[in-house]
């Protein structure tokens, strides 16, 4: 069982590495000798904003609102991170406070 898991995980890491490297090398191969197409520049400018929104949703995809604790730990902790970050603009501070808050809420609400 462990070898199956490890095998799958091994290839997962190989693929993630290869795809990441591909993305990092491709521009140098393709645009090394000509100008960037306008559409690509456009995507390059606006895609990051949208993808980050998607990743936030991806992280919260497991919430169930119909059963205890009704997604409350997530919602409260996310709200805390937003407020702290707007206030202090300090990434590490926001992350640490938010995570500790979430751990406390989760562990007290589900036990």
């Amino acid at each position: 069982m462990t070898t199956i898991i490890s095998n799958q995980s091994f290839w997962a890491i190989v693929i993630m590495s290869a795809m990441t490297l591909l993305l990092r090398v491709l521009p140098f191969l393709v645009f090394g000798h000509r100008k960037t197409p306008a559409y690509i520049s456009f995507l390059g400018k606006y895609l990051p904003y949208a993808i980050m929104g998607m990743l936030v949703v991806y992280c919260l995809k497991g919430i169930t609102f119909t059963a205890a604790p009704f997604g409350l730990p997530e919602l409260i902790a996310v709200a805390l991170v937003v407020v702290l970050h707007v206030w202090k603009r300090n990434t590490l501070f926001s992350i640490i406070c938010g995570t500790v808050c979430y751990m406390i809420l989760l562990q007290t609400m589900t036990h």
Partner: protein
Amino acid sequence: MKYLKTAFPKTLPVLAGYMVLGMGFGILLRVNGYGILWALAMSIFIYAGSMQFVGISLITGGASLVSIAVTTLMVNARHLFYGISMVDRYRGAGHKKPYLMHALTDETYSLVCTGDVPEGLQPHRYYLTISALNHTYWVMGSVLGSLVGGLLTFNTAGIDFAMTALFVTVFVEQWLTTKEHRPALIGVEASVLCLLFFGADHFLIPAMILITAALTMKRKVLEQRDSFEQAAASQQQDTLTLDTKDISMFDNKEDCV
């Protein structure tokens, strides 16, 4: 040594960030049953912070290799654009170029994209030093996290929220630094829509397609607004000496919206 001395101070913010985030990654990986070798391999070869966090949930969730490939391409798509803007600067780097390309993370990009190389230093060697230092911090952080993760005796349930918090802070940071919120909203809306429609296990790829399509449809509007803002910005150049009263008024207005 001269290069190290000059580059090291520049990388200090990254040192702090990478050590903490890297540790978070190492701990999380360890808590999910993957030890130090996995942390090392991922941090050396993938070397992309947010992707490695997503990667943990992909690996432990048993995602298929195809969806892992597509997810990696979408989550890391922004690296295309880092590359595009470094094409000129990394030209002629010779044997240093393969590593420079591999090590071009968000943070490294933020340090090298300004292009201000201290006087008397050879640019590519300076970029290489910055890149290697940052990479070292990241690997050190994740290894340390992996070691610490094995020693944790308290209840670690919920520690994976660190990834959520990371993305939320980046989202907020991006939100605060631009007035154009439509792309961010498109990202959230398209994802929620696809989540409801396709379910938690299969929504990522449809969401990415929908996001790209929606952005493409809004291209004209976004680019018009963009050029309008640029024109406004260049007009404002002369009157940029706003006093603090104006700024605080402006802040209040933003808060209300």
